[in-house]
């Protein structure tokens, strides 16, 4: 796609191709991430994503500790969504040892995962608008709402982000008294915030001109690039692992999967806004239906699964989060591989940015929704 608006090429300027290293310390790269850009005037002709600054070889670490010991490390992958990371790992390990999960624990897991989705999308939308140039204000409104959910997590698990809450066969502790009522109150008020936020941004002319037709991915490209999550659905592919795999108890809830039509940045933004509304629907049903009962099966803390391989995946807020585990009959995993959604979604960055201006590269990166803790592992 050619760059829009008035454009001076390098020949008109009498200049060469300019190489710019954007990052690793740059406010709009969402962490220590570097884009090596080649610019013709203001147009991007080539882009190389460079990362690994946060690399700590999470996968190697996990080979030396028991399965349960890996759980707190998963919080630090995508540090905004500790709950879904926990769940994905618990799901894969539960496939190894085949445990029954109590009903109440299943509901708690769904509630936590959907609250995490609210947190993540709130933050992403806020930062996306921040990247567009609306410094501060809309982001802080989003952070303010996120704070309330983080307080819920703190009451539940003791920590705001590094929750370490799920266990193989259930969850660590039961909901404290009054937690569900508080949760219901916050979820009940959330749509009002979303309405306000949509009034603030949805019809904003600047947001529309900056983000529509920018960073377009067609359906075929999105599938071929292994894109997952809201980004895939913004390109018009109806694929939500909650609907496809029906892991946990997602088959019991009535919710829709929002689909975009153009696959541009604006669609990605709107798909996330709509997903928050669907999450609220799921949350309301889950809070109404949650039964009393045990929260944890009687499972040993250390176990030795038979030698086998398993791949468990869930729909994390950023896309498909998978754990590929190889067990060798000892207490530690032989191989522990994370399939991080934002790392794979980055593959399409170069393709989407070429032909756009530098300022657009920033919002395309923002619309991918990366977290460097997960990209670098």
């Amino acid at each position, binding site marked *: 796609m050619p760059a829009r608006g008035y454009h001076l090429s390098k020949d008109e300027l009498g200049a060469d191709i300019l190489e710019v290293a954007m990052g690793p310390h740059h406010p709009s790269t969402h962490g220590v991430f570097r884009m090596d850009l080649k610019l013709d005037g203001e147009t991007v002709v080539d882009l190389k994503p460079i990362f690994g600054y946060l690399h700590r070889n999470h996968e190697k670490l996990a080979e030396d500790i028991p399965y349960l010991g890996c759980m*707190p490390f998963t919080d630090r992958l995508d540090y905004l969504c500790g709950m879904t990371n926990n769940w994905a790992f618990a799901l894969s390990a539960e496939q190894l040892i085949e445990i029954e999960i109590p009903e109440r624990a299943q509901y708690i897991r769904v509630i936590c995962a959907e609250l995490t989705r609210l947190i993540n999308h709130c933050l992403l939308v806020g930062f996306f608008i921040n990247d567009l140039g609306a410094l501060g204000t809309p982001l802080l409104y989003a952070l303010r709402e996120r704070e309330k959910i983080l307080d819920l997590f703190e*009451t539940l698990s003791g920590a705001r982000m*590094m929750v370490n809450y799920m266990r193989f066969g259930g969850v660590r502790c039961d909901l404290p008294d009054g937690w569900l009522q508080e949760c219901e109150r916050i979820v009940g008020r959330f749509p009002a915030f979303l309405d*306000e936020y949509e*009034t603030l941004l949805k019809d904003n*002319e600047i947001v529309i001109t900056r983000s529509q037709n920018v960073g377009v991915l067609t359906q075929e490209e999105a599938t071929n690039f292994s894109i997952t999550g809201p980004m895939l659905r913004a390109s018009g592919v109806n694929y939500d692992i909650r609907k496809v795999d029906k892991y946990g108890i997602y088959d019991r809830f009535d919710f829709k999967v929002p689909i975009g039509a153009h696959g541009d940045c604006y669609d990605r933004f709107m798909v996330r806004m709509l997903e928050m509304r669907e999450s609220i629907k799921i949350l309301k049903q889950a809070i109404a239906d949650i039964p009393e009962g045990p929260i944890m099966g009687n499972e040993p803390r250390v176990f030795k699964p038979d030698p086998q391989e398993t791949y468990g995946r869930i729909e994390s807020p950023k896309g498909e989060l998978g754990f590929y585990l190889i067990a060798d009959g000892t207490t530690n995993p032989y191989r522990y591989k994370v399939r991080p959604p934002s790392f794979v979604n980055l593959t399409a960055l170069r393709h989407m940015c070429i032909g756009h201006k530098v300022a657009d590269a920033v919002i395309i990166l923002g619309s991918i929704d990366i977290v460097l803790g997960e990209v670098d592992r």
Partner: protein
Amino acid sequence: MSLIAKGILQGMAVTAKNFIQSYYKKERLPTVEYPEEKSTVNQFTRNIPFLVYDGEDEIEGMRCTACKLCEKACPPQCIYIIKDTDENDKPIKRPKVFDIDSSVCMSCQLCVEVCPFESIRMDSEFELSNENRFEGLLINRDELLKSNEYYHEIHPIEAQETDDRIAAKIAEAETKKKAREEKARLAAEAKQAAAAMKAAEEAAAETETSATEQAQQSEAKAEAPEDNPETKNT
């Protein structure tokens, strides 16, 4: 784009509403001025482990028995324990060194979950900054030891549950002990009875030393252990 930027004006109305309401509505301005006001922790917050002791004396009331389960369970291996010894170099159930490296600890609470003596618990203290990056961040045993009252102060519900559990454990141990004592007493009584019977038999044997009565005596001996379970049951 329309000439009159309707969307932008709508957005400005929202920000204006937020601005004005932030003066009188708590939910529009939930921030606090941190060092003056500390509303950042609640009673469920966990940050770094500490050791609970009962009573007045730190060393005597220490619940930790240096079993090293937490050291093994800690994923980043930030706990370091050395068992204490008495003057004769015999190990006693108490840590001599109990260090937690707070720069490594990731507040995962796995040590709390494995502790069978309810000794290690999570603190909600979060102002741990220090001038010395290495030794200053290493928290040793004496700094880690905090009283049960402090535990009740920071985590009232959890501490109460722990206390109840410990009380139940002690009560159970006591009933068990009592049962054991009762059993021992009854066994001793039975033994005494058997011994008395034996003595009586022997006395009888002394007077009448015929071969047939020897056989009777052995029969009586065989009967004596059968009496014991009955006495136990009563």
